[in-house]
């Protein structure tokens, strides 16, 4: 279907906020090239499960596009209109299933050698959008703490190798209260700046019992039931012998949209965790991947001002089919490998923090509880330096 034929009735299956948004901007959706219209609907269809900042960004996109003259809009989106689409793509139900359309489009662009052209067009569009809708400054300096949990140990691995050039390396850190000290700092920040989904705690094992209030939180340990459900879904596809990875991805993405059972006392957080399991790669089997991807997605989607992410040990590698079996025990843990995963996960968390507005003002700390080492990056932390004396964790957190 061409976008010009869109009607309000096409959105009747959308959830309430998404339906209203689509109908409010129906004229715009009708006027856009099919690819762009479908990509926008991919964002609209799960509008109800988006965080406030994401909703604002989506609305800003519509406002920006509607503020352009028809000629300006045509010029900006010409690259999308110029993409050659095969008829089967155009005929797809991209309104009800924009996720599937996006996957099929991606495969088609690769196959038809238009992927690079799409990259250029999409990059230009994103840059124009960013210029027109500059991100707002955070309400407070961002503060991200990554913890490499106490069981993660590997005496032959140089910690924070990728991060050390960016800040101050602390080879001796006095634990003094450990995780509770960190969560107390998080609690204080949540009290100082009270805004929903601005403060997060994600744990790759069992979370601390004394959890801070007014903080969005979830954990690998407490989402075991959800994980079992997703693995069951995966196993059903594997057992059928007919579903390839693409079908599996679509099935999982739809599953993530189906709605959730309450797990963490907040429906947006519940749906967010479902999306981590449904859309993530490896999040269902390795707790280290779960935490790394969760931190990335929290930063990208919620743009918080505070985040504490603790890595726990992951299971040892077995065959993929075994790891995808929900009933298979995963009690054999790989502590050394987990430390390496977590160390790199800390690096990726820092990279993702730097993609948010005003990264120069942000504070990033990674701390290994077992090795009593840390790295601090941010204002007042000279790059590529090493602290000569031991430091307490409390002092680090005040940077």
């Amino acid at each position: 279907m061409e976008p010009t034929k869109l009607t309000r009735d096409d959105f009747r299956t959308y959830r309430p906020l998404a339906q209203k948004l689509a109908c409010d901007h129906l004229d715009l959706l009708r006027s856009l090239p099919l690819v762009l219209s479908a990509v926008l609907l991919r964002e609209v269809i799960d509008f109800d499960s988006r965080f406030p900042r994401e909703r604002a960004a989506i609305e800003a996109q519509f406002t920006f596009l509607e503020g352009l003259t028809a000629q300006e809009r045509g010029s900006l989106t010409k690259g999308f209109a110029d993409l050659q689409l095969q008829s089967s793509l155009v005929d797809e139900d991209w309104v009800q299933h924009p996720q599937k359309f996006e996957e099929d489009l991606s495969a088609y662009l690769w196959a038809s050698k238009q992927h690079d052209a799409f990259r250029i067009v999409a990059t230009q569009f994103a840059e124009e959008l960013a210029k027109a809708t500059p991100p707002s400054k955070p309400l407070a300096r961002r503060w991200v703490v990554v913890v490499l949990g106490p069981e993660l140990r590997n005496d032959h691995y140089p910690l924070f190798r990728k991060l050390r050039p960016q800040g101050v390396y602390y080879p001796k850190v006095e634990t003094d209260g450990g995780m509770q000290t960190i969560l107390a700092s998080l609690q204080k920040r949540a009290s100082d700046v009270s805004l929903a989904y601005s403060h997060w705690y994600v744990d790759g094992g069992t979370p601390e019992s004394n959890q801070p209030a007014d903080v969005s939180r979830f954990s690998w340990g407490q989402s075991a039931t959800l994980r079992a459900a997703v693995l069951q879904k995966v196993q059903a596809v594997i057992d059928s012998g007919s579903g390839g990875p693409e079908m599996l991805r679509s099935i999982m993405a739809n599953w993530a949209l189906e709605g959730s059972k309450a797990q963490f006392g907040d429906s947006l957080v519940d749906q967010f965790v479902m999306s981590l399991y449904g859309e993530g790669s490896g999040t269902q089997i390795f707790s280290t991947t779960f935490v790394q991807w969760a931190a990335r997605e929290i930063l990208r989607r919620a743009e918080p001002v505070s985040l504490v992410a603790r890595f726990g040990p992951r299971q040892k590698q077995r065959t993929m089919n075994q790891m995808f079996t929900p009933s298979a025990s995963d009690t054999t843990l790989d502590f050394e490998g987990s430390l390496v995963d977590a160390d790199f996960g800390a690096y990726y968390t820092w990279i993702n923090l730097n993609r948010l507005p005003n990264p120069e003002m942000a504070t990033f700390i990674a701390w290994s509880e077992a090795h009593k080492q840390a790295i601090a990056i941010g204002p007042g932390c000279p790059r590529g330096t090493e602290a000569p004396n031991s430091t307490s964790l409390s002092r680090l957190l005040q940077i």
Partner: protein
Amino acid sequence: MNFPLRSSTSQLRSLVWNRREFLRLAAASAVSTTFTPALRARGVGSFDRRKVVIVTFGGGARDEETFAPDAQQNIPGMIKTLLPQSTFFGQVVNHGILGHYVATTSLATGVYETFNNFSGVAPPHPTLFEYFRRDLSRPAHDAWVISPSNGFRNMGGSTARRYGPAFGAGVILPKQLLEAAAPGHPTNDFDRLLRDTYEEPHTLAAQTAGEAELRQMEEILRFSRDEFVHHALSLDSADELSVYVARQLMLQVAPSLMWITLHDIDVAHSGAFSLYLDGIQRTDRLCVEIWNQIQANPEYAGKTTMFVLPDFGRDSDGDPAGNGFQHHRTGDAASRTTWMMVLGPEIRQGAFVQRPIDSLDLVPTVGRILGFSTPLADGSVLPEVV
């Protein structure tokens, strides 16, 4: 499909620089014949004297974990053993689809294939095995593919008219061999050898091993079931099993054209960085092992050219559309650009080729070395090699 928020146009230059710098550092520490021309007069000779072994990685490895100065400990075999003996292409660009089966098959046909990566279908264009066998009237046992991935079972021959499976390579899937050899064996003993790539766990359920695999094992490889199973138990991964099978194939059949695909690195898709590093280190060791097997086998020593190349790269850390090492989905420079080592008796040793070449150049180059034509393949013969 996330919109990329930042382009990375300088990545390509950076990649090439890294590899050139890497080679300079390696050369400085090498005592041997670095940059000494080692070209012999090219003998016309009979075809029977020439052999080619191609090793590809299904799951590229990035410079950050291999060639970067602080990552070279992950590839000691390549640095100390293979590199000083090779002509090294620092910029091999893959312009095709970045999925392992379709990309590896494209390397084998010399045409960027566009079929669904997960379909496992035979390619529409002739493979180099078909050109080789048809042009030179070579028997079926002279060309083989060994792949740990069951999804590669149709890589040996195309559906092209005038070519096709009758001229294709034999395909050995070592995991299938193992399943056929030890049907009742406790699975836990073989877990590490039966690992699937993260992206295709579904394939095992759909396929079963049987008589064909047993025939391959007993008639081609001349393993006894017990011997094969016993040795397999001493190995650590699916790729090690493949190299073990390759060694036996070289001893028993000595094919002139053999292609080994290694996949351990592709565990990166699960997001576990430590397992990705393990895969790189194992692949490095196995490449040296294959080269040593070539040198130790009189059927191969002194007349074999070995090509080593990843099928493509992996996403850079700088592209927000990806998640760094985990995938190869963005199509950025890092994911498209890789390298190739060529070693052999007439190959210049310690040479670095900076100019960009295309992944498709492999087929016509192998054709020139072995003396067959590749009329339907794209790409160009690499003058640095022939």
